[in-house]
């Protein structure tokens, strides 16, 4: 269910780091998508935007509520998944590949050390009462 090759933030974002290019791909987990349900709107940053680990990079809105999307990494946005806004259903179907949100060129790798493995993240989710 939760891909092993990714890193996870407490706030339910996943990160895939390409160690050669120092580029991180970021999205939200299936757990988060299921908790949100009925997504209506997503706002993602523009290319060139600086993001900082632990700070919001966008927002996602459901019928019931809005949630901030928190960046798990620090760096500069180099690519944005522009197709997502037009088809939020992708987040339900494929949150870990087609549902990616932004790619960030890392300027500081230290925050990666705070991210969780898939096993630890699953443990957190079960504690949150799935």
């Amino acid at each position, binding site marked *: 269910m939760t891909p092993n090759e990714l890193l996870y933030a407490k706030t339910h974002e996943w990160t895939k780091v390409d160690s050669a290019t120092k580029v991180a791909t970021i999205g939200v987990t299936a757990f988060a998508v299921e908790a949100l349900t*009925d997504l209506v709107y997503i706002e993602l940053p523009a290319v060139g935007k600086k993001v900082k680990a632990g700070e919001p990079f966008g927002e996602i*809105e459901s019928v019931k509520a809005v949630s901030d999307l928190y960046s798990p990494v620090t760096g500069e946005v180099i690519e944005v998944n522009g197709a997502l806004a037009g088809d939020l259903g992708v987040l339900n179907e494929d949150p870990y590949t087609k549902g990616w949100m932004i790619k960030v060129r890392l300027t500081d790798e230290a925050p990666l050390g705070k991210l969780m493995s898939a096993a630890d993240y699953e443990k957190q989710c079960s504690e949150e009462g799935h």
Partner: protein
Amino acid sequence: MTTELARTPLHDWHVAHGGRMVDFAGWSMPVQYTSIVSEHQATRTHCGLFDISHMGRLRFDGPGAVPFLDRLVTRRVTDMTPGRIRYGLVVNEQGGVLDDVLTYRLQDAGGGDYYCLVVNAGNRQKILDWLAPRLAEARDVTMTDVTRNWAMIAVQGPQALELVRPVLEIDPAALKYYTGRETRIAGHGGVVSRTGYTGEDGVELMLGANKAAEVWERLIAVGGVACGLGCRDTLRLEAAMPLYGHELTESIDPYTADLGFAVDLEGREFTGRDALRRLSGQPSARTRVGLTLSGKRVPREHFPVTKDGAAVGEITSGTFSPTLDTPIAMAYVDRACAALDTKLMVDIRGRAEPARVVKLPFYRRQK
């Protein structure tokens, strides 16, 4: 700090069927089972079932019930014929709304009259506290809080009457809108009324708590879709029905809320009448309006409404309308900004989004 949440007679069913349980006014209630949008659409196109057993149900007996209730609610009770149900308000001496309520005049099998008040779950204790000193002084009326003895199920949608017909002794289509009566529900004693909170046709059933699961299961078996409080909110908002705690509070009067129809001022005495008479004579500073937004960001409760940079109002409820596929909201705005088609802005977390005043309700069913 953690207090045990109250459970309806259908609580176990909700949990067993994937209900996402939340604390609603001290009750453990399902916000949704599948998704808010799919449950919303099931109610608009077919038939939704809602456990509304958390609503407060108060029964009044005795020859003093009519004068007692007539002094309590803003709507006249003295001329209600058997079976009539009226929407009204309980207001304080200043005319602030304590609750919005339905008053039922019912008859038991022997033809004896009694009355019911259905109050909001979150206001039940407040209303009981409001009633206690008044009951102590009243003559020939007894009040019984039957909330926990009775369950309440709303059956709502274009197929609702057809779906519920087999479990009722009477034909629900024979009931006029806002009337109700005692009947047998799956063979058990209960009350059926042609009422609801979704903007659809349908009925609400009151029945013994220990019979609720049986009736609920029968309605599920014939195609009723279990619906949570999430879509109850989106449905009532599309239908522009006020929700206590949002459009109604103790600092809102009935005229500001555009509920003047629910106030009968003439020829009667009730708590708050003098204040309401004064308020009725002048236009309120603000009034309740509907807004639609052209973007996708959703206005939520308490967001400021502005015009030319100046604050002119506040959102009371907002959602993304599944039927209209656009964000909608109700708001209180200055009367000068309340005309249809007025262009306003809503401050959505620091960014102004364009909005337009539209006619309420947002959704009206085809009859």
